């Protein structure tokens, strides 16, 4: 009998093309005009955990108190009850809005956002998760004219095993989860990742026409300078910065995501839609413009990155400023800033990278940050 062809790379590629052709044919044949998901190789793939996409606090309690069997049984019993949106939900909606704009301008391009539901949940919970996605996919807070579907067509439910190994297989560019340990694992695998934190009951009015993403400078985009400050002193830091003014900083883990956003922004600019571009990026840093601002801006320029607004707070708290910006997500490496952001209703995500996460309120802690809700 003939050997299976799965180890032959040429045959694998041919098989992949067949799958892709079948996928296009399938989605084209659907009467709902549901857009097909983009080809992963060209897309900006964001993997979200089920708990960050949906609010599963009550269910989580059942899991903790009554165990996995009762938890799965509960979910099955409530299959048809849609879950409430979670902390990453507004971000996902905003990404869909950007996709709608990109599809309008570039109907044949696969350079789009792609959302993958990446969870260690049991597959039986999947039915409720898919039903919930359908519930929100059929109507939206966005204009009905846009006919925006929640295009979450790909998912990975590992039935209890860690999903981190699958991030690469699904070509993930950014992973969002409530589990700090899994986020650390992802970053160690070289995948940009952040731990999402609920902003509590504070009302926020996020834009439904523009995706806003805010980043902290140190340890998020730039990796080694935070170490200098923490381990030595501020003076050493400033000396370091001036000495290395013309040397670009090392890349932090979320830099690639900013790059991807820039790439998509340029697609709008190319079609003369700069003023109405549905993506806006913000750099929100504690540093002052005078001391380290030059190096930051030079680094960004050398990376070919355009950030729309760079805000140097010179020590002032980030919370009030973020409250004004109302980003769909704000990345920071220090829990102190995450908490400040949360208090005033900002959706914040902790990037546990570098020396920043080992300190909390000046005390060396070593525990990964976790949203225990």
């Amino acid at each position, binding site marked *: *009998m003939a050997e299976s062809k799965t180890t032959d790379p040429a045959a694998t590629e041919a098989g992949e093309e067949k799958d892709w052709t079948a996928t296009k044919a399938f989605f084209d044949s659907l009467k709902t005009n549901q857009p097909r998901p983009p080809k992963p190789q060209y897309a900006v793939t964001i993997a979200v955990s089920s708990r960050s996409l949906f609010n599963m606090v009550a269910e989580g309690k059942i899991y903790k108190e009554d165990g996995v069997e009762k938890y799965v049984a509960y979910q099955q019993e409530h299959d048809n009850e849609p879950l409430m949106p979670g902390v990453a939900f507004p971000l996902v909606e905003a990404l869909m809005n950007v996709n709608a704009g990109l599809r309008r301008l570039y109907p044949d391009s696969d350079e789009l956002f792609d959302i993958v539901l990446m969870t260690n949940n049991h597959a039986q919970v999947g039915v409720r998760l898919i*039903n919930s996605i359908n519930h929100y996919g059929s109507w939206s807070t966005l204009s009905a004219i846009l006919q925006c579907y929640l295009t979450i*067509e790909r*998912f990975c439910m590992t*039935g209890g095993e860690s999903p981190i190994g699958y991030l690469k297989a699904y070509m993930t560019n950014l992973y969002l989860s409530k589990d700090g340990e899994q986020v650390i694992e992802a970053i160690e695998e070289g995948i940009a990742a952040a731990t999402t934190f609920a902003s509590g009951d504070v009302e926020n009015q996020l834009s439904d026409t523009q995706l806003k993403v805010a980043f902290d400078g140190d340890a998020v985009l730039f990796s080694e300078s935070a170490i200098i400050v923490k381990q030595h002193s501020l003076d050493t830091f400033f000396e370091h910065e001036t000495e290395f003014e013309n040397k670009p900083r090392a890349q932090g883990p979320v830099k690639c995501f900013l790059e991807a956003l820039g790439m998509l922004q340029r697609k709008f600019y190319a079609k003369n839609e700069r003023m109405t571009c549905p993506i806006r990026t913000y750099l929100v840093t504690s540093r002052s413009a005078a001391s380290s601002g030059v190096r930051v801006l030079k680094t960004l320029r050398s990376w070919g990155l355009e950030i729309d607004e760079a805000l140097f707070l010179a020590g002032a708290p980030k919370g009030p400023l973020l409250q004004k910006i109302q980003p769909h997500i704000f990345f920071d490496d220090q829990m102190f800033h995450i908490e400040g952001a949360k208090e005033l209703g900002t959706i914040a995500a902790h990037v546990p990278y570098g020396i920043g996460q080992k300190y909390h309120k000046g005390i060396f802690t070593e525990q990964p940050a976790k949203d225990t809700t």
Partner: protein
Amino acid sequence: MDSMVRNPDVKQRDAAQAVVVAVSSDAIFTPEVEQVHGATEPLRKGDAFSFMKAIQVVNERLLTLNSDETLLFDVILLSNDSEEKHSRIIASAKHYGLDIGRFCFCNKEDSIESLQSNNVKLFLSTDTNDVCKALQKGVPAALLYHQTDPHHQTEDQLKVVFSGDVIGSSEEMLHGLREQGFTETQLQGFKTAKGSVKEFAILMGEMRRRFGLEGSPLCTGLMTAWSSRDVCASALKTLRGWGLLVDEAFCLAGAPRSPILNLVRPHIICLDGLYHMEGFTAMS
């Protein structure tokens, strides 16, 4: 005509109650490049080896839970080899301590008939074409997944993955396949395949229920390669309706499947007839 040899070293199962699985000998033992006359050393391990070890673990666990259990795997080794190789095959099975109940020696042309007459619940092969041919003839069949790195295949848990694109598709969607150039024969073949998969899924569901959610020696999964999330949800519900509550689910919607399958590491993939389209155009 086939010749059936019982393995004296293995306790015979109640074939009416057991999950009778036929595995091709080329999958259990790697076919030799050159036949050496009179060779006696054991044959080399083939692709199905870790599968064989894994079902042994499942059987042992089932018997631990209930020593009178009859829903066990019962393996028939199916060989189209020349007569001089027969004793070597039997000796190799003994050498590795494989849980093979019976050896079935027959000609290639008679294989399908042998499978049908022995009430085989599943035929396993590494060849997609052989699997699809069997499915279309109404013989339940699945693909032995070829691991690029056999050392990574687990032997202490059996992993069975079901392909869900056809299981989860509505009649209307399957109708649309006609427009993509599939013939009536092929379409009927998919229906037959779906029926065969159902039977095996019911058995796997029953077996899976013997164990709890955690620590089970049998792990079941669902994968859809090119359809939407709704088809995957529909497949999950269909399998649930057949009594199979899968542990894992993967919806690819066109994403490359090799990197994902290499992580899922199934031992067998139960095709629903539409694994690779090119396999079908060659068969019409």
